[in-house]
């Protein structure tokens, strides 16, 4: 094996950014879900689920904002983050995420998704979903990320994680109540099955493209066969996709008693949440810098290039 294969792994953005991207997608996804449930089911069957998605979305977005704030090196300059929305996806995303949080909070209590404000908030939420992917895919030096498939993956994964949290909350709510809201759990599970299949398909396309593009192939090997393969196959595929799909299909095909339904839906959604979070972390932890092209010679950038030695130095 080429000794230089795994040189230049991205380490600057770690678990905080991965969790931020996950929560930002989940928060925006929750609004989109509330909006879609309200539009697709006007008979008001999902009024509770739609309202719950508004509350949950706002809380998740607040946590995401706090998390990215804690990641900043100089927090005093955080307000400058909106200065260059014309060119920077980070500036665009930060700005639009704050707008979404504000609109989400305004919508709470009104729960009027089909007003102009509701539609505008829906578009803003969709933009946030796309932004979480564009933040990475706009980076040319990381061929693993530099594809239009990544924003698609993040949109599906964001909506999927929103459904997971909504399903979890409805399930937990069912434990403590008489179960009147449980009627919306099965339809939510059916959406989870649909979105999980969609995410799996796009993930397959994304990895297929990574295996075909020479500069992204090392990341592909690292994810599927290398040091991160265990986390990928067990965490992302089995826990994040197979379990939610299997349990989802089982739940939909059987008439189960409420305690069993609640128990299985909690397992299903928790598995989906863990898998989705792991996927974001793996996408960040396996991206490798494009090699330098020195008049035809391919030279790997050493890890220390982006990650100064001082960060690893321990005083003796």
């Amino acid at each position: 094996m080429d000794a230089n294969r795994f040189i230049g792994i991205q380490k600057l953005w770690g678990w905080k950014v991965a969790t931020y991207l996950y929560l930002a997608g989940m928060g925006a996804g929750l609004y989109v879900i509330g909006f879609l449930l309200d539009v697709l089911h006007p008979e008001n069957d999902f009024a509770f689920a739609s309202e719950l998605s508004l509350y949950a979305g706002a809380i998740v977005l607040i946590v995401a904002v706090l998390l990215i704030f804690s990641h900043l090196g100089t927090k005093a300059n955080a307000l400058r983050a909106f200065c260059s929305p014309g060119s920077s996806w980070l500036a665009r995303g930060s700005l639009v995420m704050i707008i979404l949080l504000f609109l989400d909070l305004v919508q709470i209590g009104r729960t009027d998704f089909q007003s102009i404000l509701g539609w505008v908030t829906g578009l803003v939420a969709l933009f946030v979903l796309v932004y979480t992917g564009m933040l990475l895919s706009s980076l040319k030096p990381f061929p693993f990320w530099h594809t239009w498939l990544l924003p698609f993956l993040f949109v599906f994964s964001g909506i999927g994680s929103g459904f997971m949290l909504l399903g979890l909350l409805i399930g937990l709510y069912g434990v403590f109540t008489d179960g009147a809201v449980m009627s919306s759990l099965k339809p939510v599970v059916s959406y989870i099955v649909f979105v999980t299949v969609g995410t799996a398909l796009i993930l397959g396309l994304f990895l297929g493209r990574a295996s075909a593009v020479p500069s992204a192939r090392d990341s592909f090997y690292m994810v599927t066969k290398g040091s991160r393969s265990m986390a990928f196959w067990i965490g992302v595929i089995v826990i994040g996709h197979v379990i939610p799909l299997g349990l989802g299909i089982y739940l939909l095909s059987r008439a189960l008693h409420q305690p069993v339904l609640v128990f299985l839906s909690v397992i299903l959604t928790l598995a989906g949440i863990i898998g989705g979070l792991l996927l974001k972390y793996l996408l960040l932890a396996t991206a490798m810098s494009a090699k330098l092209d020195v008049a035809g010679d391919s030279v790997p950038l050493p890890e220390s290039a982006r990650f100064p030695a001082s960060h690893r130095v321990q005083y003796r």
Partner: protein
Amino acid sequence: MTRYGMVIDLARCVGCDTCSIACKAEKTTPRGVQWNRVLKYETGVYPKSRRHFLPMQCMHCAEPECKKVCPTGAISKRDDGIVVIDGDKCMGCRYCVLACPYASPHNLDRRCTYYEGYVTPFEKADHQKHRAGTSEKCDFCLSRVEKGLEPACVASCVAKARFFGDLTDPESEVSLLIKDRNGFVLNPEMKTDPSCYYLPRREVK
């Protein structure tokens, strides 16, 4: 309009790292941070293998990716083509470090002194300029250039492998070297239009 640029002759570079040390001395960069560095790599298979040296610093691109992605507007391009980071505006998101194809900006996560609990006189001299939680990079020794001097790496190069000048002047030394000796840039496919050119190394049979 002036566009400062640099030409590095790979046929002359001996990989001595004098440029790296001169940069460190001039800029008093903290422990572990090198704005200028010399990458060493090998090509071929023994007994026909060769070791090469590739001096690197900020390429001061005409279309800098770091400037494009910076959300705070801390990175700007001067009229003379030099790309600078304003530490007062940087919020330390590290997006510029990831966006640069040449990994030129460094994020100073925390300030690491050379000795635990002791700041050397060398570090004290200019250390306030290196603020933890911000990104920083080569500025072509702006303070020297404004005085009409060459950047420290150019002035100190023992092999005379580095040249500095105006790329827009067709009669300047750098322009003539690029033209006469087929100067090339790193990763042209990134379309950043770097201001640092390299002259090809000698091929050994």
